[in-house]
């Protein structure tokens, strides 16, 4: 199962966080990525503040089962050519794949946790609302 991939133009601005852009055939693609995004109202950085022990990073994600039923597949390449004129991509991120060509197995796992910290001024806010 091999095909010839001909790409005239491929333009990708950013390929980040364990992502792949592949032109041509491949066998196995296995990607894994973990991200902890902390946004604060005030600038404060401490790389040891959060251990990467949140349940989202450890819990197993149940994957859809692969059907192991034996399929007798015959693939006939009448024209073994994949012709692409142009592809324009702004961003590929967090274990994603852009693949031009044939592949066998693709496995990707992405785990993202967002934390936003704002200043605790809810009481003040409630008081000002009451005065309205």
């Amino acid at each position, binding site marked *: 199962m091999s095909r010839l991939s001909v790409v005239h133009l491929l333009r990708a601005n950013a390929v980040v966080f364990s992502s792949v852009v592949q032109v041509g055939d491949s066998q196995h693609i296995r*990607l894994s990525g973990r991200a902890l995004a902390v946004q604060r109202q005030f600038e404060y950085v401490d790389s040891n503040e959060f251990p990467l022990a949140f349940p989202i990073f450890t819990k197993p994600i149940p994957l859809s089962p692969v059907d192991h039923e034996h399929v007798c597949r015959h693939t006939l390449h009448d024209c073994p050519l994949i012709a*692409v004129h142009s592809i324009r991509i702004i*961003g590929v*991120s967090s274990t994603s794949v852009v*693949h031009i060509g044939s592949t066998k197995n693709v496995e990707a796992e992405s785990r993202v946790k*967002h934390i936003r910290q704002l200043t605790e001024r809810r009481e003040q806010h409630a008081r000002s609302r009451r005065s309205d």
Partner: protein
Amino acid sequence: MNMTVVNHHLSVGHIAIGGVASASLVLIGDSETIQLASAFDTPPESLIIGPFPQKQNNKKNEEKR
């Protein structure tokens, strides 16, 4: 089960993509198995109303005056 696949000419003109993110796949071609999983967690703390909306309220109060 028997299956026959005949690949004829595959030709793509132009594709414009904004973003491919969080265990996603754009495939021009064929594959046997694809398993993609993505988990995203954002805590309820993200809903705290901070001082930024309060500033907007102050502006409204000033306008009233």
